[in-house]
């Protein structure tokens, strides 16, 4: 049975086409202002890549992400909490803690050995610890998101950024630039500030190895290293692009539901 998972996020839409235990294709698009349109675009691309003729060829589709209620062609919708956990666990069965850092929310899930969520904690009330924050910082520093990821590794002494709020943190960063603080140290400071926030969320649900990152911001190597330092564990990688973990989880659940 060929099924589909569609994760409609605030910044990107992700789709996965799954045939039993094989991912046939996946695709990522920037989100439009209409979740329905984003979902359709990304699902159609994924379906094309999988060599199918139309979205209707999929036996079952599960939608997830904040736009999940607007995906008219989905047969069901499941929370992104459950989907990210399932997806991450399937991609690396040793995973017991998932840190999802998305465009405008971040969450931490504690999993059991089957990839089922035991506990979760979310921040979806502000930009702290989300992609929006990194975008704003990349803009101020003129280094691009790629720079936030790679330049931080050279940072010897990360600058301290004390503001929890992204808006005030941006002001702090501008001050640091004007004081002539090294760019790499500022970037390291930004990653450390986010890692601090995420690590307190991890402690709320209880850290259990292995830990992995999902979501677009998980590609930020500077953040991953900072988080490792704060928690004292290694960040494990997944066998696919971590950004599609939610869509993978949705597709897996679609696979189960179509058999039920």
């Amino acid at each position, binding site marked *: 049975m060929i099924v589909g998972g569609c994760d409609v996020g605030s910044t990107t839409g992700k789709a996965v086409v799954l045939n039993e235990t094989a991912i046939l294709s996946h695709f990522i698009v920037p989100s439009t202002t209409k979740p329905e349109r984003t979902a359709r675009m990304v699902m159609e691309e994924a379906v094309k890549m999988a060599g199918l003729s139309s979205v209707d060829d999929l036996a079952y589709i599960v939608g997830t992400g904040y736009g999940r209620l607007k995906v008219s062609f989905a047969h069901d919708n499941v929370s992104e909490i*459950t989907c990210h956990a399932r997806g991450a666990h399937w991609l690396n069965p040793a995973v017991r803690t998932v840190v999802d850092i998305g465009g405008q929310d971040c969450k931490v899930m504690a999993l059991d050995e089957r990839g089922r*969520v035991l506990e979760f904690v*979310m921040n*979806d*009330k502000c930009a702290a610890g989300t992609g929006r924050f990194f975008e704003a910082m990349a803009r101020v520093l003129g280094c691009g998101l790629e720079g936030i990821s790679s330049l931080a590794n050279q940072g010897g002494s990360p600058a301290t950024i004390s503001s929890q709020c992204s808006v005030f943190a941006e002001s702090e960063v501008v001050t640091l630039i004007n004081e002539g603080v090294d760019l790499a140290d500022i970037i390291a400071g930004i990653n450390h500030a986010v890692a601090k926030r995420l690590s307190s969320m991890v402690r709320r649900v209880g850290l259990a190895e292995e830990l992995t990152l999902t979501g677009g911001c998980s590609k930020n190597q500077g953040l991953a290293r900072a988080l490792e330092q704060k928690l004292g564990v290694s960040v494990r990688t997944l066998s696919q692009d971590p950004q599609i973990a939610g869509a993978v989880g949705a597709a897996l659940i679609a696979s189960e539901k179509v058999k039920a």
Partner: protein
Amino acid sequence: MDTEVRSKAFEEFTAAAGAVMNPEIAEWKEQGGGVVGYFCSHVPTEVLTAAGLLPFRMRGTGSTATELSDAFFSNINCSFVRHTFNLALQGDYDFLDGLVCVNSCDHVRRVYDNWKRNLTTPFLRIISMPKKVEDAQVGWYRDEVTLLKDAVEKHFRVVISDEQLWEAIRLHNRTRRLQRVLYELRKSEAPPLTGAQTLAVMVAGTAMPRRRYNELLEALLESLRGVNGQQNYRARLMVVGGELDDPGYLEVIEEQGGLVVADALCFGSKAMWNLVDEEASDPTEALARYYIQGQPSCPRMHGDQPRRVAFLMDMVREFRVDGVVGERMMFCDLWCVEHYMNDLDLKEAGVPFISFDREYNASAKGQLRTRIQAFLETMGK
């Protein structure tokens, strides 16, 4: 016939819960009746009833902004007091003949201070409530109840005899008994009403003349007899928290398939689970004992959390609850650590628990939906 009675009753209750003013209050005022507002579950409203007044529990229902009241509060005061006071500044509470505040928390305490400076409600009073639930505190509160009675007598030029107090106690207890019957119906596998509907019925009970309310509620209970209700739900939930008076919140939870079959809320079970002792020798003592010890405990009471969690566990067992949802208003001091402790204690007892922060008016529904959906999924429901 029964469906007609039922829908008419739900309509009237929902309308009363959905606004501050309602036709029952308007008629009461027209007939020359006095209305006294009150904050919090601990004001001995029987005293007001005994004086021939209509007690009205204060809400910020219908308020969409706080730009008038924000000038009088700090940015760490909760949205409940800011919205309620905003309505007052707009004139929506001009129908009040009095207001009784209590030091339930520092946010409500400041409403009294602001009200005194800015509004001209004729009878304004703040009661001092103790912070523990031992017999000594009952003695203290008995004095406060007596002082309130004296002040009401003096201002409204009435006499409140012991017999009138007993009559008011019996009337309020009748309401509590009827409301308890309503809750018992939700123990069934197919409760005949939702949590949102129940909350509307409970809120309405604080917003209309009591005899009329009891009549309507009796008719509703009669029409619900033997009705088979909600069966297609995913899980049976209980909501725990404080000042939640908007059925809209429960609707968001129930839309996900989590039927709210029980609660431990100020407007909910807290208001009626136990009765004032009608066999006591002295009515002010009976009232003091009820409001300090008898009523299900409030997080403002020191050292009483074990009793509160025991109450939750009893409700979980009696109503066969699958999971407990804790709600907390942003900036609420009383409920923040309470839910942290609830989380530890309920988890230890094997009861799934989740808590969420909210503002007074039902914004951010998407975030609540996601959390509730995820909660149901983690329960495997």
